[in-house]
């Protein structure tokens, strides 16, 4: 029995370190290869030893697919390909391919900077890893090999985020990665066609939440920044090099323009140009509004946002600074935070979640006296704000996607067990499909019934249509034809076409039977008697007496002959085709009863 097997190595009933193994019709695919920001030892990466156990990695895995550039989906990739030793293809969309190395480099620098970690992947490894990437376009079917094909769909979440359909023969799995079903300021909504996969693997971050509009959060953000700047304070926004930073830059840029604000906005990473370059390059991936306005003005060409210099942090007066890293755990953002923390006029806005072990986590949990190096205590007087800008589908969005794709089964990942449990029940009730939520390391096995597609010839279809019966997908119909199997393809054609294609001559199969009649008359006379008898009995059928003396009823042929040994007996030879088998049998039994006596 063919089956689909799914084993999450990460993202099974948790968030972070997404890595899901899917086995479909003998093909093995790894979906995402993420890391966990909360650990700084081996636990930050998925435990790949469970794959290497199956033999050589590159032989076992047919491909790796990366859904988007967030580190919890791609952060372990250079480790996996350059240190663990995977040497096969890696698929991702073009924007992901372009942006992924920037974030990986950012992550590497922080890891090395913060800890001086020596045994970490290097810049060269990131580059070598990226050279194994094959970029895919949306809606383009890519043949990984002769049997395995993948197709990307727009996922919204971040620039270049995609959902992937993985197909082997007639079996298919859709993996959503992270997605957003409502358009936001610079991205559109996720979309997938009614592909009816055997399994839909969907994220479930907001499995139980109905989120308010992101616009409210954006308004709130602008209000807070504006108020702080107005009262002469400085605003620090710790970000990762790419992604949310650009999103917020657009917000501020437009707001600054509208309100004619003069306070400078700085971007500290030195990556602005490249990041913005990519956002410009991938305009087709953004939402309709940005695409439209692109003709007049490129949203990513910022007039107000300028490159930061370290000396600016000490300048008097209001300003807004975007600085890396995003969790205030090292480098530039932490340095600026230390300088500005003591002034209550200033504000720090954390636009994303912070893991334990970072200053970001501390201030978000309300700690205001922070121990710094050398037993120094930093008193945080500046305002601390948390604003979630993450773009995940909420419960409504997830249900909407399930409805769109019409899967046979659903599997939840990237969420918390309790929330998943709730959503699972909802999906099972509403869609009447099985829903699974394996923990990391647990394997879900789904038996699949192999469906064999058969093509129908145009001729045969036309013949059916000629009978006045239009095809209707809801009413299955019986169709007669000849099934031809050729080159692993199945086709149903008319028997004439089959004969023609195969170069065969038509043969006719006839059943014959002998019936003995006691009749002393000549054969011709016996035939005439048979004709008269049948004519009288079979009123609805065409009974003929042919010049050669034989009698026909439809395709049935009856000939009378003399018995070789008994002159008083005549032999009736009855033959018929298989189409008239019923009539043939009836006639035979009729004749066996004898002919009526001549009057």
């Amino acid at each position: 029995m063919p089956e689909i097997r799914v084993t999450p190595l990460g993202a099974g009933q948790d968030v972070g370190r997404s890595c899901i193994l899917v086995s479909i019709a003998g093909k093995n695919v790894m979906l995402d290869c993420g890391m966990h920001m909360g650990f700084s030892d081996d636990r930050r990466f998925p435990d790949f030893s469970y794959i290497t156990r199956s033999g050589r990695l590159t032989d076992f895995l047919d491909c790796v697919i990366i859904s988007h550039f967030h580190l919890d989906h791609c952060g372990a990739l250079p480790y996996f390909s350059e240190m663990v030793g995977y040497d096969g293809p890696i698929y991702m969309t073009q924007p992901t391919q372009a942006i992924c190395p920037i974030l990986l480099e950012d992550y590497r620098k922080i890891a090395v900077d913060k800890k001086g970690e020596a045994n970490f992947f290097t810049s060269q490894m990131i580059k070598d890893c990226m050279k194994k990437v094959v970029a895919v376009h949306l809606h383009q079917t890519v043949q990984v090999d002769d049997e395995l094909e993948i197709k990307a769909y727009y996922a919204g979440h971040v620039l270049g985020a995609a959902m992937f359909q993985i197909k082997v023969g007639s079996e298919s799995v859709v993996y959503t990665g992270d997605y957003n079903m409502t358009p936001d300021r610079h991205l559109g909504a996720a979309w997938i066609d009614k592909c009816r996969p055997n399994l839909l693997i969907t994220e479930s971050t907001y499995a139980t939440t109905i989120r308010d509009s992101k616009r409210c959060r954006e308004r709130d953000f602008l209000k807070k920044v504006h108020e702080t700047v107005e009262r002469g304070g400085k605003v620090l926004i710790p970000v990762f090099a790419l992604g949310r930073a650009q999103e917020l830059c657009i917000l501020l840029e437009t707001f600054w323009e509208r309100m004619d604000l003069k306070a400078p906005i700085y971007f500290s990473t030195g990556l602005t140009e490249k990041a913005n370059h990519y956002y410009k390059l991938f305009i087709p991936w953004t939402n309709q509004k940005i695409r439209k306005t692109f003709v007049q003005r490129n949203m990513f060409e910022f007039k107000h946002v300028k490159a930061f210099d370290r000396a600016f942090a000490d300048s008097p007066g209001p300003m807004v600074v975007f600085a890396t890293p995003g969790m205030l755990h090292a480098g530039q953002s932490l340095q600026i935070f230390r300088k500005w923390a003591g002034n209550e006029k200033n504000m720090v806005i954390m636009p994303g979640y912070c893991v334990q072990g970072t200053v970001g986590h501390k201030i978000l949990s309300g700690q205001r006296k922070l121990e710094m190096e050398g037993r120094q205590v930093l008193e945080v007087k500046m305002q601390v704000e948390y604003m979630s800008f993450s773009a995940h589908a909420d419960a409504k969005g997830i249900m909407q996607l399930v409805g769109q794709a019409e899967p046979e089964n659903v599997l939840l990942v990237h969420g918390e067990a309790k929330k998943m449990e709730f959503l699972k029940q909802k999906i099972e009730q509403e869609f009447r499909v099985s829903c699974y939520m394996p923990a990391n390391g647990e394997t879900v096995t789904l038996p699949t019934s192999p469906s064999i597609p058969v093509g129908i010839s145009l001729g045969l279809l036309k013949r059916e249509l000629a009978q006045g019966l239009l095809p209707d997908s809801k009413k299955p119909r019986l169709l007669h034809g000849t099934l031809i199997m050729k080159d692993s393809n199945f086709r149903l054609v008319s028997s004439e076409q089959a004969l023609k294609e195969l170069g065969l001559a038509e043969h006719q199969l006839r059943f014959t039977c002998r019936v003995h009649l006691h009749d002393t008359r000549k054969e011709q006379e016996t035939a005439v008697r048979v004709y008269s008898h049948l004519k009288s009995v079979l009123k609805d059928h065409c009974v003929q007496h042919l010049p050669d003396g034989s009698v026909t009823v439809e395709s049935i042929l009856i000939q009378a002959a003399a018995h070789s040994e008994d002159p008083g007996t005549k032999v009736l030879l009855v033959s018929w085709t298989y189409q008239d088998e019923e009539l043939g049998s009836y006639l035979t039994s009729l004749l066996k009863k004898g002919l009526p006596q001549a009057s």
Partner: protein
Amino acid sequence: MDPECSRLLPALCAVLADPGQPVADDTCLEKLLDWFTAVTEAGSSLLLLQENPCLVELLFHVLKSQDLSSRILSFSLRLAGIFAAQENCFQYLQQGELLPMLFGEVGPLGGAAWTAPAVRSGWIQGLRTLAQHPSALRFLAACGAVDTIFSLQGDPSLFVASAAGQLLVHILDLAMRGPAEGHRSPQACDWPACAQKIVGHIEDSLCSTAVPQVTQALSVLTTAFGHCHGLWTQGLWVRLSPLVARLLEKDPVPASHSLVDLLLSVARSAPSSYRGLWETLAQTLSHLSPTQAGPLALGILKLQDCPQALRTQAFGILLQPLACVLEAAAQAPGPPGLLEGAAGNSMTVDTLLSSKSACVGLLCCALAHLGLLQPLPQRPSPWPQAPLLGAAVTILRLCSGSAAPTSDVGSRLCAILVGCGRVQRAALDFLGALSQGTGPQELVTQVFSVLLEYLVSPESSSMSWMPVGHFQRLLPRKNEVRCSLSPCIPSPSYTPGRGRGQAGQLTPGPAAPLFPLQVLKKAFQATLRWLLSSPKTPGCCDLDPHTQLFLRELLPVLQKRLCSPCWEVRDSGLEFLTQMTRHWGGQAGFRQALLASEVPELTKQLLRDPESYVRASAVTATGQLSSWGLCATPAGHECPGAQQESLLVELLHILSTDSEGFPRRAVMQVFTEWLRDGHADVAEDAEQFVAGALQAASRDLDWEVRAQGLELALVFLEQLLGQRGSHCPYAVALPETAPPGVLAQALQVLCRVQLFEFAFRALFDCDRPVAQKSCDLLLFLRAKAAPCGSPQEAGDSPNVASVEATLQRWQAGEQGQPLGYLEPGAVVALLRSVDLEGLRDTLAESSDHVEKSPQSLLQDMLAAVGVLGENEADCY
């Protein structure tokens, strides 16, 4: 335990025990366990529990509570295991009957919580940590844990199942170690009951008809033989090897992969101690299919001491697929094949021809295994270098469609392999590995020819733009191949990689990608390995004529690759050029060929490539070319100084203006190398060069550029003042101060190039590696400057006081104000006044060590209660 932590612990335990206060960050519990492990490893667990009764209270509370999360339950099981690992603490916990309640039938084991894999995993991990002493062993037996572990071997969670297997081995080892270890008979009959039970279970599993059970037993044994080294393992082998051998009688052999792992694990531990092992290995080799036997064969050949007959058999298995390919592709009976008399092994041929995936799988494994074997000292001898080279070349030609096999098998192989990227990559890797050996010239020529074929055109694109050279003439002509393959290839427009289905049944399917970039990259790597290992002509330092000839054909190909629209290709081309130049920059033949080509000019043009990776590689390549005087000149002459200067200016321009870090880092690396190697044009005015480079680096936002700037500064210092001291801990540490005259002069120079401004600024850099590097540099300088002047004279000058004040502001994070010009005397005084050792110690710690401390962890967990709630899953 830190008193502050001790103070926070009761509150934390209360939070953990409260179901209404979920722990927001799941990493916290892991980190908490790490901390408790460290604390108990450093001291008495019993004392810890006595001093912090809240911990035991927490464990009791967890048992009573009905609605605790599975995470907390799992955490508690693991925590109890950590405490109970010490025997006296174990007894202490036993007094309260806590352990049976946690790990016995009455605990979570029998409850609804057991359905959560995290709880089962916590239960196993808890027991694994706890099982360290005889009391633990008795406890395990008494609470029936072993039976539960047996059942957990088949757990739906991979993690739980795997941990269960490992725990069984751990218990077995613990039971067998004990006080009687030295006297323990290898005879299994008088083993402890617990061990008997486990071994009995393994026996039953090995006899089972269910493959998963056999697999479980085999993996337990693999771990046992891999990790346990007591005498008892011999007894275990004696008892179980007949059952293992019996598996070979089944067709197909069940759990073959696990069986191979087990046999190799036994063979690696102490093979001579295990009776009948070699026979079992030989038997297994002959029973397994060629694909299954490959890893076993490789494992056997890697063993240090192993009977020759077995090695021969194993080597035969690895060679078999290549022998088949060679035989199938041979146009006429040629020289002796790889395996005399065994080339036509029907099983291997059947596998190769059965399906595309089987063929590709078998060939890739064989190539990878042989490639791994090649560099090992224990590789088989004689090593059939020539036939292996022939096989690699043949496979590559079959894949590219340029081979012309006439046999039926050959044609079918060709149809399967043509355009197959996976085999191409494996074969190129293997060919690269074979570069370490020698081969007959004719074959080496073929190697170069096939490499050139791959470098020219992995996509089979047009070759018409290039004149046909010597090596390309060696290639079979394409149309000949097409004719001979006409039964397999449906049309002349057939594209490699489009084949699908069974051998010889190619149909035009949807486009399968060739994956050419990876193939091209491998081709570059293999070519480089061959070039770098090619022999030098005896008595002459130049290249041998064949290599010379090859180079002449290779460079136009490289030229083409440097113009590729794919950045990956341009980059691989540049990396290749850099390596080649580094190795051969001084050889006349190479220089001549390179200068006659347009490669140097193209490389220079790539300094302005749109892709930053490529710009960085171009910087490195140009730097390397320039070091050998090989930079671009239109007339083909080696570059004069003016050109060189312009390169320096161009690199400085990149350093100051490039928006990306990679090219800027590459420039600093090139500059450091130039300075270190005494590059002629740098040496002309080293001071100005260093000043310019440091000035540009100091402004850089990328800390790696600044760190590289310090590297350059250090090289400069060493050139002025002599090398840094040996880092050998056993070397006699003599004072290595510089003579006063040299020092004074050097300090003048360093002040002029503003090295101190750069180094002191870096000392207070917000990026730790920069500060660390600077600290090391200043410490080195201080050691060298020891005899220069007395601290008082310089320290009293007003200049020093103001500089010290500026430095303090810098340390506080205000780096706006410049340091200004420093006198050498002031520098020496500053070096003495700054607490460099103290800074070095601080910098040696991770920059987030305060946030990562246990105290900080406890504070965070307490502070997060009820605050993070909704942010919890809002990860990215």
